[in-house]
């Protein structure tokens, strides 16, 4: 009996490769798509800071935050959400910062039309508003006309039309207050367009609060992509209002091997205020460092020297950031941006 079992086992062992099924690209693609259908990722952030304010040495945590990202994709459908617990309220609507965004999407006509609906939908057409965003993010890296920046987002609906090199987005905010009139909602319509000119650059146009009397915000930007190693972008913003405000920004960087030199200039034309950053970057394979100088025409912002060092180890990132304010007295802050992503 034992011999029969042994012989059968041997026959089976020899026969197995014969019956082995070939895995095609389609089979593998299906398996990979099924595996990537759900995704849960996240990160923990901690930003302890040592600060010398001219008299005392302070130690505090600028931010601690836990973030969880969820996505579900099944063919043309998708659901995306970000949950966040933080000591700093940065919620899109100014609400309690638990749900950063949550929306569903469907791609129609071979993704020529993508419809999204939910709360705090990140949108991506508005180039940086020279007057507002640049001042918030005084960082040479992120100043410029970027289309991948998650701005505050909207609660409501978003329609994306993609055809050829053009991408048009229409955003319809939906107010959660039951007494909101339809006419008020339509007033807040926003429309944006992005046109990719192959080998030349990208044009961005955006208009928000389209029908609000004295509320229109219009921005236009151009990113140059025609010159190797050179990034250059310019943008213009017009904000209607009792006192109309105009802003202008230019950003340029040039890369030579692992070194990049970048400069960003932003100007509030109406109030004759301006800000400029200049920085030199060095990118190694597993770390990078940059240092620079910032000048601001507003004495309350002042002039300062800044330096970052990004060190990456596995899922952990450590970025010490030093900022020295060149005021009287000289003050400084050393922040350790720590992130553990999972």
């Amino acid at each position, binding site marked *: 009996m034992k011999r029969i079992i042994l012989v059968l086992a041997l026959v089976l062992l020899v026969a197995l490769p014969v019956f082995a099924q*070939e895995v095609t690209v389609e089979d593998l693609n299906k398996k990979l798509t099924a595996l990537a259908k759900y995704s849960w990722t996240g990160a923990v952030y901690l930003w302890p800071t040592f600060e010398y304010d001219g008299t005392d040495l302070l130690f505090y945590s600028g931010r601690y935050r836990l973030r969880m990202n969820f996505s579900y994709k099944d063919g043309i459908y998708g659901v995306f959400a970000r949950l966040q617990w933080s000591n700093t309220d940065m919620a899109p609507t100014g609400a309690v910062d638990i749900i950063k965004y949550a929306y569903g999407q469907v791609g129609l006509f071979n993704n020529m039309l993508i419809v999204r609906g939910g709360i705090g939908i990140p949108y991506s057409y508005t180039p940086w508003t020279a007057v507002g965003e640049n001042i918030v993010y005084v960082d040479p890296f992120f100043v410029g006309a970027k289309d991948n920046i998650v701005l505050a987002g909207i609660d409501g609906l978003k329609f994306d039309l993609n055809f050829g090199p053009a991408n048009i987005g229409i955003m319809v905010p939906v107010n959660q207050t039951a007494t909101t009139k339809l006419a008020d909602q339509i007033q807040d319509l926003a429309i944006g367009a992005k046109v990719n000119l192959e080998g030349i650059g990208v044009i961005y146009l955006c208009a928000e609060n389209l029908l609000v009397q004295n509320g229109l915000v219009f921005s236009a930007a151009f990113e140059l992509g025609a010159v190797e190693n050179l990034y250059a972008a310019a943008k213009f913003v017009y904000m209607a209002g009792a006192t109309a405000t105009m802003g202008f920004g230019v950003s340029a960087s040039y890369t030579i091997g692992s070194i990049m030199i970048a400069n960003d200039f932003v100007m509030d034309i109406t109030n004759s205020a301006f800000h400029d950053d200049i920085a030199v970057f060095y990118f190694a394979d597993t770390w990078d460092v940059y240092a620079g100088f910032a000048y601001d025409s507003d004495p309350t912002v002042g002039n300062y020297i800044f330096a970052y060092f990004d060190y990456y180890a596995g899922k952990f990132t450590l970025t010490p950031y030093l900022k020295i304010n060149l005021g009287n007295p000289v003050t400084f802050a050393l922040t350790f941006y720590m992130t553990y992503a999972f």
Partner: protein
Amino acid sequence: MKKKYIILFILIVFFYFYLESCETLENISYNCKIIGNFEENKPIENIIFLNEYLNQKKFGTNIGTNPFIYDNSIGLNKIYFNLLEISFYENNDNESKVEILNAVVLDSNANNIGIFMKKDDLINYWESNQNIGKEIVKLKRKIENLYLPNNFRIKKGEKKIYYFVFKSIQKFEEFEKFIITIKFSYNDKIKIVKTEISKVNSK
């Protein structure tokens, strides 16, 4: 005072995570044998498999610097990016035109074990990653500079080195042997190049 203790505690937790992140990988050696001579395969000169150890040694262990690591989800089955280095050399024409059409990878039983990622696929993957945030700027720059483009030109005497990945369910390191086939157009002529990659000491 209490807040300081909380920060100290979180610092200790971070330090623990940091130590956890420093896992050691085994550096398994591979033979990468391109089939045929250079004249037949021109302008492809060589294809090398960079295992996980070499990948991380070269580009780092963090998705902030290394776009060739798949950002796996918590608690779900893993997906892998398997990194290859390809070198091109032009010895004849003044300037040649190369277009990468496709690449497949088969194990010794002729099963497909990976899906070739084109440059745009990889950029799209990272752009739609919710976890990467502002690091996308650096990753995109790296992919643009290093990744195998769909089309490019190469001048006489010039050597170009690019990287590309296959997405898979099993790490390529788990296979004793696999064959990579690259289909490309060279000055409008269709060519196919095969490379056999096997573990050193494997039969």
